[in-house]
């Protein structure tokens, strides 16, 4: 697996506060990686360290194979970044921001750069706002401009810190569509609080809590691991439920009353194939119902982090 981002024991301490603790994270190449965690988990700190805005207390990281502590400028020429609260010179016009950014990444004639600016304006849906001053933009428009300046250099990696925060549903949809449209062009590493959005577009997930990674992996494996099934058996079910517990791919069997059982499995594929035959054929259980309990990213996130986590974002 080619990694676009790798961190090795990354840690950050602000006086008495440990913002990051021994972070070992891998973001595979050519994925959309959702970076999740409650406020104050250390997501922004991680991204700022990766972008060279902050320095780790200990540990290091590699982006696109280059160490961040020695090749920062080289890395930044291949990475686009959107900060949590993108800010530009207020007197700049939209096209000036994009032209300025384009000239930092790309070489070419003024006309060629202007064509690239036009392309990007179309892409972010701000073509009709090109001549407007930054200070006159709405929050959503400024966010899209932030994404525009991040993508204009055709980066190999996009790091987006809460790209859809503060947007109305339409703005959020537009930003998500934009990210989806970019997935073939760059690895995208983005943080978000909106779990539905992450589940919709991410194919890799990293969950951070109190500065520590508590889960990371491909989305499919993420949702698949720990899959659960609801089984309703006529009568008590005899020995079938107990027999299930002996199977290597079953991680738990829990009775919830009235012949209803919830079966947790470690391998969803095997469970789909084996669960019904084991119950019916091997143990003669009369099955009234067998269906997967659909787990969402939110179930996993809440299970891992706990509900109601609040705090200051760092």
């Amino acid at each position, binding site marked *: 697996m080619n990694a676009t981002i790798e961190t090795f024991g990354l840690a950050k301490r602000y006086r008495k506060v440990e913002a990051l603790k021994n972070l070992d994270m891998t973001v595979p190449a050519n994925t959309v990686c959702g970076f999740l965690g409650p406020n104050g988990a250390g997501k922004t700190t991680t991204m*700022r360290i990766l*972008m*060279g*805005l*902050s*320095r780790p207390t200990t540990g290091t990281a590699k982006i696109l194979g280059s160490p961040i502590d020695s090749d920062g*400028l*080289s890395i*930044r*020429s*291949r990475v686009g*970044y959107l*900060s949590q*609260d*993108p*800010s*530009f*010179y*207020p*007197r700049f016009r939209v096209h000036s921001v994009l032209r*300025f*950014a*384009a*000239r*930092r*990444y*790309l*070489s*070419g004639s003024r006309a*060629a*750069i202007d*064509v*690239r600016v*036009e*392309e990007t304006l*179309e*892409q972010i849906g701000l073509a009709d706002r090109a001549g407007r001053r930054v200070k006159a933009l709405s929050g959503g428009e400024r966010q899209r401009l932030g994404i525009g*300046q991040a993508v204009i*250099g*055709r980066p190999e990696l996009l790091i987006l810190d809460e790209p859809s925060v503060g947007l109305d549903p339409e703005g959020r949809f537009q930003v998500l569509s934009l990210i989806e449209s970019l997935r073939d062009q760059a690895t995208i590493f983005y943080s978000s609080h909106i779990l539905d959005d992450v589940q919709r577009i991410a194919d890799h997930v990293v969950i951070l809590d109190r500065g520590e990674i508590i889960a990371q992996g491909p989305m499919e494996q993420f949702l698949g691991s720990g899959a659960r099934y609801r089984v309703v058996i006529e009568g008590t079910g005899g020995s079938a439920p107990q027999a299930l517990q002996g199977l290597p791919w079953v991680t738990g069997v829990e009775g919830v009353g009235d012949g209803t059982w919830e079966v947790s499995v470690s391998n969803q594929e095997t469970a789909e194939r084996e669960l019904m035959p084991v119950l019916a054929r091997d143990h003669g259980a009369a099955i009234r119902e067998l269906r997967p309990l659909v787990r969402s990213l939110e179930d996993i996130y809440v299970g891992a982090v706990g509900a109601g986590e609040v705090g200051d974002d760092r």
Partner: protein
Amino acid sequence: MTAERVPLPRIEAIHPFRGYIGMLGVEMRVWFPWRVAILVLAGLGIFATIYIPWQIAGVNQLGPLFLWSMALWLVVVLISTISLSEGTVLGDIDRGTISWLVAMPIGRPAIIAAKAAAAAFGVGAAVFITGGLLYPLYNMAAKRGITEFTVDELSEVTESPIGRWGTYISLPDVGTYLSMLFAIALLAAFLVAVMILLGSSIRSRTAVFGLGLAAPAFLIAGWVAARDALVASPVGLVTAVAEGVQDRPVEVLVPATATVALSIALVALAIWRFGRRELS
């Protein structure tokens, strides 16, 4: 996407001053035209200290006012420079634009060097524009004899940092006047370097402004206490201005060289400090 893709190669050059020209363009737009205009207007306002009493109040003994105006102009240039350059680094940090800049492939040294160069050029331009506008006005005043007065009449103004004047005062010639302007511009550029270093090292804008104000105070104190020993320093430029206003030969080479070297050292220190700074 509707427009056709254009093959634009990525810039491969990697050095600490990458992006300097682009940043210089941005910073020049910060100083020109408005900040420079403010500095020029502040300087021209000084002329009003002569013009208004002369034209409106009918005051004839304007010599002391003329000399005060020169001293006041120097002070106004220095204070305005401190005030306008106080947010040169911290303004971007407070606004959040610094994160945008640093996250792009722009070297941190390029950002500081461009800010210093644009600010120094801006205040320098303002000094020469103001000086150029004031010179004919002072000439006009001199022709009417208002700059001639006796030592007794000067007694009230000899505490001024401009210095000790002779029995009669005449306006400096063009060469001397330009040397004076050069000295004032360099003093302002030196203060820019001080402010850039403070802004790169300290988080509080109030503290930066307060410490910045101490710099001209030290200059004046150094000039009063040890001007002969501090020729090869910015204090020597204060001496040059004081000599120039008395139409005496102005020695700027040594103090100018020392001030430029010191300013470059301060900016280099600022680059080092900014390179290590955590950006929020």
